[in-house]
């Protein structure tokens, strides 16, 4: 399953000209507010008709202005999870969930039943409730279930977590990871949160002022994101849990990492997102230090930022890591490309997002 998008659209003085194709898995559309992310998703979903362009899912053309093809949204077989959930207030949760299934019953085929979706999202106890009695997190989970049960060819998620607080996000993120890994439906996911993108995305599309400025695998693209954060992503596996101290030990190409206890089984693949400002550098292996994570590496590049800060790119046994330091520290330690260093990261700096 793949998604191809190539569109031009002008709305007032704002212009979107986007072209990308996404591999299977979760494609994150990443960019600031107002960069055209939602409009782009609306175009894929058929809610907005662009001035010119072509959209195809898995080779099936949904839109082609040159050939005058426009499949209306009710025949696109998309599942759209909106930022504001948009559950039908006059229907129970169960009837909200089954709404799409009724219209897509001919499409059938590998129909996902109600029970597995309800289990996957943990919403079994809500079925007879009305949407207005649900919390924000519950609403979003029901909205995700409703989209899934319409048997979509592609799932569109427009900042599904934006309206939620940290705790509710943490509650839903594992469900989205399971969708990505278990349901086999390609997902186009809009976000402006680096942490979310780092955790979920297979492919990242960066949108700046309506233009695609970068496309590629998450580890390559995310450090380019102009988020003011410039963190790095490490692919890792859970090696073991340290129940006594409530920690999990991860193994990655860069070395072992100890992070706050994760609720995933041993052997599960995870992504560690390390913010540049949480990384400290030392020229010698640090001793008698509280931080639990020390990764050996070599400096790949030193990039002065504006003002007092500089970004130091490291190569830790093939994995890329970025540290944000002061220019003063860079000079004091005479940091330069090729120099071996030790990156120090406090375990508590890992967020559980």
């Amino acid at each position, binding site marked *: 399953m793949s998604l191809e998008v190539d569109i031009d659209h002008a709305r007032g003085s704002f212009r979107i000209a986007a072209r990308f194709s996404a591999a299977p898995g979760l494609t994150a559309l990443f960019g600031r507010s107002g960069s055209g992310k939602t409009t782009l998703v609306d175009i894929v*979903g*058929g*809610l907005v008709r662009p001035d010119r362009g072509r959209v195809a899912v898995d080779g099936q053309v949904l839109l082609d202005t040159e050939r005058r093809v426009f499949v*209306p*949204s*009710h*025949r*696109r*077989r*998309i*599942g*759209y999870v*909106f930022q*504001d959930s*948009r559950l*039908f*207030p*006059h229907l*129970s949760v169960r009837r909200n969930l089954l*709404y*799409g299934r009724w*219209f*897509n019953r001919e499409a059938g085929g590998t129909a996902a039943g109600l029970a597995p979706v309800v289990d996957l999202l943990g919403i079994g106890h809500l079925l007879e409730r*009305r949407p*207005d009695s649900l919390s924000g997190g519950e609403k979003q989970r029901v909205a995700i279930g*409703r*989209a899934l049960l*319409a048997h979509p060819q592609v799932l*569109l998620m427009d900042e599904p977590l934006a309206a939620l607080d940290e705790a509710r996000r943490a509650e839903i993120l594992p469900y989205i990871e399971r969708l990505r890994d278990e349901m086999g439906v390609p997902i186009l996911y809009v976000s402006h949160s680096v942490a979310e993108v780092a955790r979920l995305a297979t492919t990242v599309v960066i949108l700046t002022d309506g233009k695609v400025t970068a496309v590629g695998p998450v580890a390559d693209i995310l450090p380019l994101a102009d988020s003011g954060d410039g963190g790095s992503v490490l692919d890792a596996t859970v090696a073991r849990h340290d129940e006594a101290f409530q920690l999990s030990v991860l193994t990655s190409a860069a070395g072992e990492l100890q992070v706050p206890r994760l609720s995933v089984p041993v052997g599960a693949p995870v992504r560690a997102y390390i913010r540049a400002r949480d990384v400290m550098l030392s020229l010698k292996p640090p001793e008698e230090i509280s931080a639990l994570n020390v990764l050996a590496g070599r400096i790949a590049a030193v990039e002065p930022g504006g003002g007092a800060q500089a970004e130091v790119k490291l190569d830790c046994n093939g994995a890329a890591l970025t540290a944000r330091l002061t220019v003063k520290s860079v000079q004091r330690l005479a940091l330069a490309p090729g120099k071996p260093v030790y990156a120090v990261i406090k375990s508590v700096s890992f967020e559980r997002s």
Partner: protein
Amino acid sequence: MTPEEWTAVRLSLLVATTATLASLPFGVAVAWLLARRQFWGKSLLDTLVHLPLILPPVVTGYLLLISFGKRGPIGAFLDQAFGIVFSFRWTGAALACAVMGFPLLVRAIRLSIEAVDVRLESAAGTLGANPFWVFITVTLPLCLPGVIAGAILCFAKSMGEFGATITFVSNIPGETQTLPSLIYTLTQVPGGDAGAMRLTLVSIAISMLALLGSELLARRIGAHRIAA
């Protein structure tokens, strides 16, 4: 009450109910068009629908007479093609009431359709519902209180309609003599005061019952939506 008065009350109820039920589907369709669609001639349609509200009822009645009367172009066609006759029949009274109540009906429904969140409608579209089913399963249930309010207004207007009815179908006892027409007749004859007063009280009672009924219905729908 005299048999003549009973007949008028029954006729009025029949005329008002027929007028309301028959114009309801058209009212919903026109309200939806005006609330949700952009098309050529939209303001013309809007004006036409509202015309009976501002024209003198006698003028509306006269226009109905010359178009739907036996020799009017529409009336003659309907008579020859389907055998439907409006002039000097109770069906004509219902037609006059429907036309007079239509602006009130459309206005109430249109406002409540406009209050339905279009984002819910587009969400239903992404789930596979075509525009017709979006309307039936999302828009209509959500604007139902407005539809009921509009229908009650139309019914109340029909119960009280006088000018257009008497101009179009006259004042024939047992056929087109509705409650207001009979009150008017009674006020024109000596000794009719008592009858006019009785019918006035009946008229007030029916209006209040209709209002109360609509209030209860709207509350039941609202409660159902919150509780269930």
